[in-house]
C-alpha cells in the first residue's frame, strides 16, 4: 500500500470510529457525522434566513453601517441581536461542517470514479463560502472589518487583475465612500446565491439527496446556536479608524484565518501559491491511481419490463428510461456506466429478480455481472443443501453486505453466509425462498444505520422488508424468522452476538408453528 492510500485508510478508520462513537447518542439516522452535507445546507439556510433580516435593517453608509448593525445588538438578546449572532455563528458552523465534510469524503476515498463530479463541484464551493464569509465581516465596518478589508485587499493586489490599487481604498479615513458598502452588500448577497447554485450542481449526480437533516437534528442545531447567541452575543468592536492599526481584537479564526496566515508568511505570492496549490491538489485527487474498475449494472432488454423501479432506487441517478426497442409502448432501463457505483441496488429492486421463477439460468431485467441474481440463487440453493446435513441447531442463512462486518467467520454446519455487493442488492423474495427451501431463519447483515457505502442500501432493504417499498417481502413471511442487524466493519462482536440471539429466538419457536409451506422449484431451461 502506498503512502497516500495508507493515510487515507487511517483517516477512514478514524472517521468510522468517531461515527460509531456518536451512534449510541444519535442513532444512525441522526448521526451528524454521517449527514454533514445536510447539516451544512441547513446551516446555510440559517445564514440566508437571518441574513435577510439583517439586510432589511442595514443602512449603507460609512458611519450608518456601523450604527445600524450596532443598534441591532442593543440589547443583544432582542430579536435583532439574536438574528445577528445566529447569522455569524451559523456561518462559522458552516465552515466547520464544510471542512469536516471535505475531510470525511476524502478519507472515504469518495473523489474518484462516479463520484469525481460531486468532488470537483464541491471544491469550488469552498472558495465561494470563504469569499461570502470574509465579505460579511466587512459589512460591520468595525476594527475587525478594517483588519480584514486591508489584509484582503493587500492580498488581492498581488493578482495582476487588481493592479495593486484595491488597498488604496483603505489608506485613509477619507479614501472610503458610502457607495463602497452598497457594492459590498450586493457582493455579499450575490456570492451566496452563486454558492446555492453551485450546491445545486454539486448534488446533480445523486438521487434521493438529504437536503436537510432530520427534524431532531435541525432543532438541536438551532437550539445550540440560539443558546450560544444568548450566552455570547455577536457584538461589534470599536468602529474602524483607518488612521490607526487596531490593537488586540476578538478574531474569528474559522472564517478569517487567512489574515494571520498571510501576516505570518509575509509574502502575498507565497500565500496565493499555498491557496492555489491546495486547490489544485484537491482538483487533482481524482487523478490518483483508482482501484480496479468493477463491472457496472447490465440491462437485459428481454427481461426488463420498464417498470422504473431501478430508476427510483438508484442512489446515483445512473439509470434513465428509454423506449423499448422491441416492445412498443414499453420502456427500457439504460445504465450510464460513468455514474454507476456497481452497488447492485437496481438488481434488488427489479421485480424479475425473484428466485421463485422457474427459469434457469435466472435472467433478470437488470443485474450485476460480478454477482448476478442467478449466481445468488445457485449459491443459496447449494448452501441450503449443505445446511440440510446439519444434525442439530437452527439452520440460518446470513445475507451480508461486503462493506459491513465480516460475516464469513460465521460460516458453520448450521450457518450459511452469502456475501452481497450491498445489502440493498438482495431482492426480498430471497428471504422467503430461503425459508421455504429449508432455512429456519434468515439474518440480514447491513452496515450501520446511515452508514451504507452506497447511501441507501440498508434503507431500501428495510423499506422492502416492511412492505413500504416495492418489491416487498410478502406479508405471509413470519417476521420471527428473519432479522436485520446493523454492524459496521468494526462490529464483528455485534454480528456474532446478533446471530446467537437470533438462534435463541428461533429455538423458542420450535416446534415450528409458523413455518411456510416448503417450495420446490421446477426447472425450466430457456434457450
Amino acid at each position, binding site marked *: 500500500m502506498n503512502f497516500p492510500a495508507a493515510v487515507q485508510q487511517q483517516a477512514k478508520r478514524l472517521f468510522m470510529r468517531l461515527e460509531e462513537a456518536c451512534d449510541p447518542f444519535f442513532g444512525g439516522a441522526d448521526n451528524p457525522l454521517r449527514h454533514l452535507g445536510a447539516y451544512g445546507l441547513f446551516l446555510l439556510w440559517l445564514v440566508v434566513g437571518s441574513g435577510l433580516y439583517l439586510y432589511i435593517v442595514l443602512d449603507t453608509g460609512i458611519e450608518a453601517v456601523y450604527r445600524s448593525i450596532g443598534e441591532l445588538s442593543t440589547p443583544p438578546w432582542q430579536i435583532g441581536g439574536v438574528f445577528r449572532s445566529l447569522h455569524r455563528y451559523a456561518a462559522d458552523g458552516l465552515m466547520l461542517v464544510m471542512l469536516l465534510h471535505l475531510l470525511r469524503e476524502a478519507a472515504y476515498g469518495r473523489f474518484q470514479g462516479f463520484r469525481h463530479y460531486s468532488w470537483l463541484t464541491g471544491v469550488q464551493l469552498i472558495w465561494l463560502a470563504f469569499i461570502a464569509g470574509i465579505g460579511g465581516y466587512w459589512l460591520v465596518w468595525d476594527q475587525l472589518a478594517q483588519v480584514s478589508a486591508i489584509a484582503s485587499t493587500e492580498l488581492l493586489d498581488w493578482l495582476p487583475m487588481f493592479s495593486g490599487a484595491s488597498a488604496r481604498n483603505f489608506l485613509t479615513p477619507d479614501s472610503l465612500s458610502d457607495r463602497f458598502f452598497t457594492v459590498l452588500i450586493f457582493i455579499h448577497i450575490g456570492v451566496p446565491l452563486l454558492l446555492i447554485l453551485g450546491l445545486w450542481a454539486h448534488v446533480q449526480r445523486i438521487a434521493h439527496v438529504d437536503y436537510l437533516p432530520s427534524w431532531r437534528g435541525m432543532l438541536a442545531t438551532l437550539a445550540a446556536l440560539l*443558546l450560544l447567541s444568548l450566552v455570547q452575543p455577536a457584538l461589534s468592536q470599536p468602529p474602524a479608524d483607518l488612521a490607526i492599526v487596531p490593537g488586540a481584537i476578538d478574531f474569528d479564526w474559522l472564517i478569517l484565518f487567512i489574515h494571520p496566515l498571510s501576516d505570518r508568511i509575509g509574502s502575498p505570492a507565497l500565500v496565493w501559491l499555498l491557496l492555489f496549490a491546495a486547490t489544485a491538489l484537491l482538483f487533482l485527487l481524482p487523478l490518483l491511481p483508482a482501484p480496479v474498475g468493477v463491472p457496472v449494472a447490465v440491462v437485459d432488454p428481454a427481461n426488463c419490463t420498464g417498470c422504473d423501479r431501478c430508476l427510483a432506487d438508484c442512489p446515483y441517478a445512473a439509470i434513465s428510461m428509454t423506449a423499448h426497442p422491441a416492445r412498443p409502448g414499453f420502456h427500457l432501463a439504460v445504465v450510464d456506466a460513468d455514474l454507476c457505483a456497481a452497488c447492485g441496488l437496481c438488481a434488488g429492486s427489479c421485480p424479475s429478480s425473484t428466485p421463485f421463477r422457474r427459469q434457469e439460468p435466472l435472467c433478470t431485467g437488470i443485474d450485476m455481472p460480478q454477482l448476478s441474481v442467478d449466481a445468488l440463487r445457485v449459491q443459496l440453493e447449494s448452501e441450503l443443501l449443505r445446511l440440510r446435513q446439519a444434525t442439530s441447531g437452527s439452520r440460518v442463512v446470513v445475507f451480508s453486505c461486503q462493506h459491513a462486518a465480516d460475516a464469513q467467520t460465521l460460516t458453520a454446519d448450521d450457518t450459511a453466509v452469502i456475501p452481497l455487493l450491498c445489502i440493498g442488492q438482495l431482492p426480498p423474495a430471497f428471504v422467503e425462498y430461503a425459508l421455504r427451501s429449508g432455512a429456519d431463519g434468515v439474518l440480514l447483515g447491513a452496515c450501520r444505520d446511515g452508514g451504507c457505502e452506497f447511501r441507501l442500501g440498508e434503507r431500501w432493504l428495510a423499506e422492502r422488508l416492511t412492505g413500504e417499498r416495492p418489491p416487498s417481502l410478502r406479508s405471509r413471511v413470519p417476521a420471527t424468522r428473519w432479522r436485520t442487524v446493523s454492524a459496521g466493519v468494526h462490529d464483528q462482536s455485534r454480528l456474532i452476538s446478533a446471530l446467537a440471539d437470533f438462534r435463541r429466538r428461533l429455538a423458542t419457536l420450535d416446534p415450528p408453528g409458523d413455518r411456510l409451506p416448503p417450495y420446490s422449484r421446477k426447472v425450466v431451461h430457456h434457450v
Partner: protein
Amino acid sequence: MFKPVALVGQIVLYGAFAAFIGYFATSPKYRQIADDVALIKLSISHLGDRECRKRTPEELAKLPPNMRAPLDCPRERSDIKLEVDLDGQLLFSTVMHPTGLYKDGVSTVYRRFEVPAGKHHLAVRMNDKIVNPGFNFSKADEVELKPAQVLVIDFNPDRGGLFFK
C-alpha cells in the same frame, strides 16, 4: 424509545459544537502589530511621464496640416523610480513599471513598514521620467509617530506631488 443517556450525550455533543464555534469565533485575540510600533504605508499610483520627442520641421512638413503636433509622444509611459529614507538610512527603493499590454497604465506601489513609535526623519524621492537623471519630486520632514498610528506616503500632482498624511 426515550433514552436519558442518549439525550445527555446529544446535549453534550451539540454543546461542544456550539462551544467550539463560540470560542474560535472570537478567540484567541489577534494583534497585527506590537504595542510600541507605528505603521508607514507607502502607496502611490501614478502615470509615469511620456518620453516625448520634438519633431523636426521636415517631419512636421510631411504631416497633414491638422496633424502637425510639435511633439511625438509614444503611448508607453516611463518607469518611475522611487526611494524612501528613514532617519538617513535607505528604507526602500524601487522602479515601478507601467501596467497594461502597451505599458500605458498607471505604475503602482504599496508597501507597509513597521517602525518604532517616536520621532523620525522621513524623506521620499521620485522620478517619473526615468530618462532624466535625479528626482523631480521629493518630500522630507520630521514626523512624530504615535503607537499604532498609520502614516501614509502618497502622491498627487494636484497637491504638489509627494505628501505625508
